[in-house]
């Protein structure tokens, strides 16, 4: 288990480290082609593939899970109606999430959970000495995970932590790290600069890491 997790983490790192906006094949292309030919099963497969991420992103704008679910449904109806005009100039998922975000924003009451006084530090500053070096350093997780928790339990922690993130961080994190859009795609979908996107991503990731660390120490 532990080895698998770490190997996959390394693979992810290689892919992420390889740089932004690497032109990759649209993973939805096979189902999209079948959907255009009227295949219901292909439609349901696409819905299933993106459903969790769509619900999470929509939930960042609207006040309840039920409303988020409605926004997701309306998005798919809009996708079916607009399919013949979609020329594939962006990836399918970029198009899909752009529709979703537009709908969620117009439905949402905009009562976003913003936190103006949010801690700007990735790590509690008291964990560093006056020289800026670690005084309470992080432990290696490969041992901790093996002995105390499996990856499934950590996923539960992560899911809860994600739901708790400020809305702007959550939507970026879901699109970039959960749904695996490129940073350029995320910026397009949300209409923000890549720099702004990276700041939100960094805050979100740092918070999730902190939550995992707390869980592993418990």
């Amino acid at each position, binding site marked *: 288990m532990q080895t698998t997790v770490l190997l996959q983490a390394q693979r992810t790192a290689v892919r992420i480290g390889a740089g932004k906006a690497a032109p990759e094949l649209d993973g939805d292309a096979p189902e999209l082609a079948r959907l255009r030919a009227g295949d219901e099963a292909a439609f349901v497969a696409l819905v299933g593939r993106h459903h*969790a991420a769509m619900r999470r992103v929509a939930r960042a704008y609207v006040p309840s899970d039920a409303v988020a679910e409605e926004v997701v449904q309306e998005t798919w109806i809009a996708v*079916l109606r607009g399919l013949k005009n979609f020329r594939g100039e962006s990836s399918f998922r970029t198009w899909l999430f752009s529709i979703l975000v537009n709908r969620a924003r117009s439905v949402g009451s905009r009562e976003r959970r913003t936190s103006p006084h949010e801690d700007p530090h990735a790590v509690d500053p008291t964990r560093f000495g006056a020289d800026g070096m670690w005084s309470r350093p*992080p*432990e290696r*997780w490969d041992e901790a995970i093996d002995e105390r928790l499996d990856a499934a339990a950590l996923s539960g922690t992560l899911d809860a932590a994600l739901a708790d993130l400020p809305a702007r961080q959550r939507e970026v994190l879901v699109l970039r790290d959960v749904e*695996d859009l490129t940073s350029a795609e995320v910026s397009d979908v949300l209409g923000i600069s890549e720099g702004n996107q*990276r700041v939100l991503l960094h805050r979100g*990731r740092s918070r999730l890491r902190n939550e995992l660390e707390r869980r592993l120490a418990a």
Partner: protein
Amino acid sequence: MINLFARPYRCAEIVELVSDYLEGSLSKRQRARFEAHIAGCEHCHAYLDQMRLTIELSGRLDEDDLSDAMRSEFGEVFRRMREEGEI
């Protein structure tokens, strides 16, 4: 003035640069300084691994969570729209 002998990063700076490093958005020089620090600091190396694992675990949250009931509901929407000539 360009500082050819830039001071090494401190750990407290490394933790703020991790995402830019992983996203490939550090400058060449920053990247070299970042990697020089990581190579010599086991704690920051552990921290970097933790961030990678956090990202990896996030990537696994996209599992298909559609219930059978919703699956057939979406199928029905599709069939209805096709019958009404909307698609």
